[in-house]
């Protein structure tokens, strides 16, 4: 990674104060310059005031995760300064000089336990328990710390604009902060201003003011900050075919492309962003046909959401719902109904930290075993997980195909980490999306149509509502071929076989490459699923670059039915199996042990609600390689 430019930028502030815009502007500017960008947002379950921050990594090479620590931080509120100063070891901090005298006790929003630990730490080092202590500590760690008066910049802006009311517009602090740091990083002013214009495209007046503020900040930076230690020199401009996407764009646009025409949902973090996106892109162009549309229905609860999606699927539309753990818990019963009635359905499950309400805006991968087992009784299903945003676009279309072809509910596992990232990736290629509706009957059937006909490969023809001569019945009770209730033990057994054999069928028919992916090689093998992919790939590079061994990584995408023999094939010759997951119990490990006849040797787990950084993961992997790792390696980085 020599010669590689790689800068981690951190911005924090109270929720609702524009942290996101700041990150958007920074990311936009970097992307437009041709850098790879990867950022993630941390925030409280709160609307205004609690601490929120964004760490964005910009690099000349591919980036797929965050690292521990930051190269440059901009803090326009006290809490950010207090919480994150230690993240910037040896880098650059720019903070608003207005907070200089603030103490920990002035920050009402900080978790009490957190505040207590921080206070003890500063006090222990003999430093004041406030911003001054933080500044001293940072300097002690070799960080360049610059106090800049954000208010002075605002005042000069107010003067320039001839509008004294601007003096009080502290919500421009975010743009000022971003611009200060961007100036320090050597990002051309015009790149920053262009990014601002894009961010506020809908409000030209706001854009103009913010551009002016940026300009003033650039001047201030020149005189008061100078050049940061890390820099982002101009590059050749945006890379061809690159998008700057948010995490939920993958599944949202994936649904549109896959022909999902009905989405029912009940609001829940971090799932509703997807539905809100669909709601604002309702009317659709369709090649060779009249305009299409996605009907998005906000329901009274998640039971209704899945119930409506099932009703719509029976009517013939590709249908979906999108939720998070609490909502998914409520869907368990209806899921079984879809199972016994062989209804295609895609449930996009954006996981967050549970149980119960848990940490509603924090990351977790703790719903895997629940997704595999949700709902009483036994019925076929597919559980499928995407590793990153780009994958999630193509996977969404696959999930709909699996649902239609195997006539089963498909649970598409996503998570909060994926949802709240912003990143550059290749433009999705809709032309690569194929659609297979399986045995969907839209025209008059022959005589004696039977929805649940036995025989063949266990997949019967599925009529949609409204097809003449193809009336049918469904029931959550055990049923005969026509769909009428039966309690006959022989038919029962046949129907159980018909339904559950579909899992084996899917396992055999779905291409191996869609079930699991192998990266790298080596005797130490990581098995993992979902959004740990980015941190793992980056950590593997880091280990190798640091002189550590080459390792292999098996990303399991189809979690249920579990592709045991293909995974075994990919693991041939591996001596050490390391399970990596963002949960407490090692849920993939349990599936692995059940199917593979052996447990993983090590578990690298994290359950603080924060996603893994490649740095801490690389550390744990080095311990595994060095033989010093325990059976459970627990990661904890991040505020």
């Amino acid at each position, binding site marked *: 990674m020599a010669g590689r430019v790689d800068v981690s930028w951190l911005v924090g502030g109270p929720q609702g104060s524009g942290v996101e815009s700041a990150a958007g502007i920074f990311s936009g500017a970097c992307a437009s310059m041709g850098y790879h960008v990867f950022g993630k947002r941390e925030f409280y379950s709160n609307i205004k005031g609690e601490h929120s921050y964004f760490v964005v990594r910009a690099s000349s090479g591919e980036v797929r995760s965050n690292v521990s620590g930051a190269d440059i931080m901009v803090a326009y509120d006290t809490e950010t300064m207090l919480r994150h100063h230690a993240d910037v070891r040896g880098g650059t901090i720019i903070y608003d000089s207005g907070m200089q005298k603030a103490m920990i006790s002035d920050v009402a929003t900080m978790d009490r336990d957190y505040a207590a630990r921080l206070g003890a730490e500063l006090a222990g080092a003999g430093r004041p328990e406030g911003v001054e202590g933080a500044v001293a500590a940072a300097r002690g760690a070799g960080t360049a710390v610059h106090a800049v008066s954000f208010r002075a910049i605002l005042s000069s802006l107010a003067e320039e604009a001839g509008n004294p009311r601007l003096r009080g517009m502290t919500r421009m602090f975010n743009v000022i902060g971003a611009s200060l740091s961007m100036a320090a990083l050597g990002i051309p002013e015009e790149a920053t201003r262009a990014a601002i214009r894009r961010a506020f495209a809908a409000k030209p007046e706001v854009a103009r003011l913010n551009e002016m503020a940026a300009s003033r900040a650039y001047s201030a930076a020149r005189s008061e900050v100078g050049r940061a230690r890390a820099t982002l020199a101009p590059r050749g401009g945006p890379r061809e075919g690159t998008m700057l996407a948010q995490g939920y764009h993958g599944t949202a646009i994936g649904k549109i492309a896959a022909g999902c025409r*009905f989405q029912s949902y009940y609001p829940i973090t971090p799932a509703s962003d997807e539905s809100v996106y669909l709601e604002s892109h309702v009317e659709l162009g369709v090649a060779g046909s009249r305009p*299409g*549309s996605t009907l998005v*229905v906000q329901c009274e609860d998640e*039971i209704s959401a899945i119930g*409506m999606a099932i009703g719509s*699927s029976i009517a*013939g*539309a590709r249908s979906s719902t999108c939720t998070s753990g609490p909502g998914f818990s409520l869907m368990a019963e209806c899921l079984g109904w879809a199972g016994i009635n062989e209804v295609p359905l895609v449930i996009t499950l954006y996981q967050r930290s549970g149980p119960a309400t848990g940490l509603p805006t924090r990351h977790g991968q703790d719903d895997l075993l629940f997704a595999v087992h949700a709902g009483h009784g036994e019925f076929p299903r597919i559980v499928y997980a995407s590793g990153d945003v780009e994958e999630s676009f193509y996977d969404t279309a696959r999930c709909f195909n699996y649902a239609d072809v195997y006539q089963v509910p498909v649970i598409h596992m996503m998570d909060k980490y994926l949802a709240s990232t912003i990143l550059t990736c290749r433009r999705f290629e809709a032309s690569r999306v194929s659609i297979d509706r399986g045995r969907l009957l839209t025209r008059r059937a022959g005589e004696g149509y039977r929805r649940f006909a036995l025989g063949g490969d266990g997949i019967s023809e599925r009529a949609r509502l409204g097809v003449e001569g193809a*009336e049918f019945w469904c029931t959550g009770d055990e049923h005969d071929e026509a769909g009428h209730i039966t309690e006959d033990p022989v038919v029962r057994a046949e129907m159980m076989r018909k339904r559950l054999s579909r899992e084996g069928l899917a396992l055999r028919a779905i291409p191996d490459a869609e079930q699991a992916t192998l990266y790298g090689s080596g005797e130490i093998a990581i098995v993992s699923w979902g959004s740990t992919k980015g941190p793992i790939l980056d950590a593997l590079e880091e280990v190798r670059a640091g002189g550590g061994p080459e390792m292999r990584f098996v990303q399991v995408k189809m979690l249920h039915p579990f592709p045991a023999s293909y995974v075994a094939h990919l693991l041939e010759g591996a001596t050490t199996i390391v399970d990596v997951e963002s949960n407490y119990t090692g849920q993939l490990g349990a599936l692995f042990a059940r199917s593979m006849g052996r447990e993983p040797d090590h578990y690298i787990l994290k359950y603080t609600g924060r996603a893994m950084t490649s740095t801490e993961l690389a550390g744990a992997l080095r311990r595994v390689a060095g033989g010093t790792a325990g059976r459970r390696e627990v990661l904890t980085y991040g505020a």
Partner: protein
Amino acid sequence: MAPSLSDYKTGVHNDWCPGCGDFGILNAIQMSLAEMGVARHEAAIFSGIGCSGKTAHFVNVTGIHTLHGRVLPFAQGAALANPNMRIVAVGGDGDGLGIGAGHFVAAGRRNVNMAYIIFDNGVYGLTKGQASPTLKLGTKTKSLPSPNVNYNVNPVGLAVTSGFTFVARAYSYDVRQLKDIIKAAIAHEGLAFVDVLSPCPTYNDINTRDWYAGGGTGGGDGAERHSRIYRLEDEGYDPVVHFAGAGELNEKLGQALSRSLEWGERIPTGVFYHNETVTPYDGRIRDQIRNYAENPPALQAIESGGRATTDVSPMLDELAA
């Protein structure tokens, strides 16, 4: 050839108890479809779980027998995905007003174009006679160990309060009125609700057919007893909201609620409330999706030769770096 009544009957054995009021409702539904000439493939019955839930298997149109309490979400999903279908939802009083009450209230707010019929017998039939939400406080049917400790829900009152735009009550032994009401409910543009009083001779020994017919009313021996049930229309009751606007609306809602509270000696049936001044859900959607009716979700083309045909480039362009 116009379909006849028998075309709407399946050969599935009906295992309701002899004398169950539900038979009358089943007949009325079949007659309604036949008289309205609804093509078999253009209708679907959705049902909940309970004795009443089996109805979906007895009517020879597509039948979707859902889960306990969930008939409305399933049915609305189908009605929204293909508004050209005639959707009739049916279910028990426990199903719709106990476990399903939340969906009931929400459905009223949505006003999707379909009809919903509750088989109101005051008990949980299929689970052996526990009190249902419509059983009156203090009533002790033979299957209860002690008198009912819950106040009853008022189905008609709840429906009007929740925004249903057609609200009626009928009696399962007055099949003619019932059928007329069901036809009107199906024809109604918006969400129609019909509460059908339906005796359960097996578990509800209080609100029996004899009771509805006046048992316990009238004088002593030999005195003529009078049916408890009367028809709103016979008293010149006008359920219709003629004008959009608060004044008449309030009055019509108020009279519906007030009539719905009558019980005991005089029990009204008929249409309590009928409001076509409220745009149904599909009408509201048309503001967002102009060709919703012509090209609804269930019927849209999404692929050609196995390739996706939806144009996502506008969305991708928005995101170009």
